């Protein structure tokens, strides 16, 4: 293992810790009984950021150009958007 490899491992380790931290934020929000549509959407946004981290860093799609990465990004945005719509509906 040389310099570049350590960099890669470091990236994935940081990603992992970031995911753990974001999860705890979500949980704390739940414990504090976060109310209100915008805060709830914050929780959703965190979920989508986590999803993006998984797709790019863990699944390794960050360097995949055509089709698969756009597909999964589209997936996150569509699902996230539709869920947000449902929660924002009056």
């Amino acid at each position, binding site marked *: 293992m040389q310099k570049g490899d350590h*960099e890669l491992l470091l990236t994935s380790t940081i990603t992992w810790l970031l*995911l753990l931290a974001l999860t705890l934020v979500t949980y704390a929000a739940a414990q504090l009984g976060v109310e209100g549509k915008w805060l709830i959407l914050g929780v959703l946004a965190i979920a*989508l950021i986590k999803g993006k981290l998984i797709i790019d860093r863990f*699944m390794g799609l960050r360097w*995949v150009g055509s089709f698969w990465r756009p597909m999964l990004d589209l997936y996150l945005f569509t*699902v996230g958007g539709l869920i947000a719509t449902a929660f924002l509906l009056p």
Partner: protein
Amino acid sequence: MGESDSPVLSQQKATLSMTVPDSNRTSCAITTDYPPGDVAIWIFILAELSVFALLFVVYAFTRHYNLELFDLHQQQLDSRSGLINTLTLITSSYFVVRAVAAIQYGNARLCSRWLWGAIALGLLFLLVKGVEYQHHFSLGIGLSTNLFYTFYISLTFFHFMHVIMGMVILTVVALKAGRGGYCATEHTGVETAASYWHMVDLVWLILFPLVYVMR
């Protein structure tokens, strides 16, 4: 693992026209058209993700029309086990990333060890979820109890089954890795299994806030 780092690797890769050197995976800007692992698993992943997407969206809209029911029963869920399971799956996914990294340097034993670690965490997930189910079932709660539980059990059980499926795949790959079935130049199987496992994780990362937290 740039080309300069692994001369043997890049030499072998250069002979395969379909593949793109792994050097792309460091921060240089060249991209590839192929995802890690076998394309067939990615078609499958896309199909599975679509099913979950439909379930999530239908959940969100059904909840909108049954707010009180959903809020009431959602509060009865044990969000601590949800938290533990999220942390478990994320860590397990991370282990799998390490396993892939290990085999890329040809360290099959390390790869297999990380995979077994991921499988053990999968088992922990099943255990925690199983205790949760046990609690529900002891109260006589089932798929037909009410609309919320129809969704809750459909979604989580379907995901639960995917965890089992993912563990089966990981086990097959871990055993093969332990036997030395993969090497630095040929480890599509490990990447294929890893991609599937990350998908299981990805689904849970949306499922957890949606079903346990958002109200």
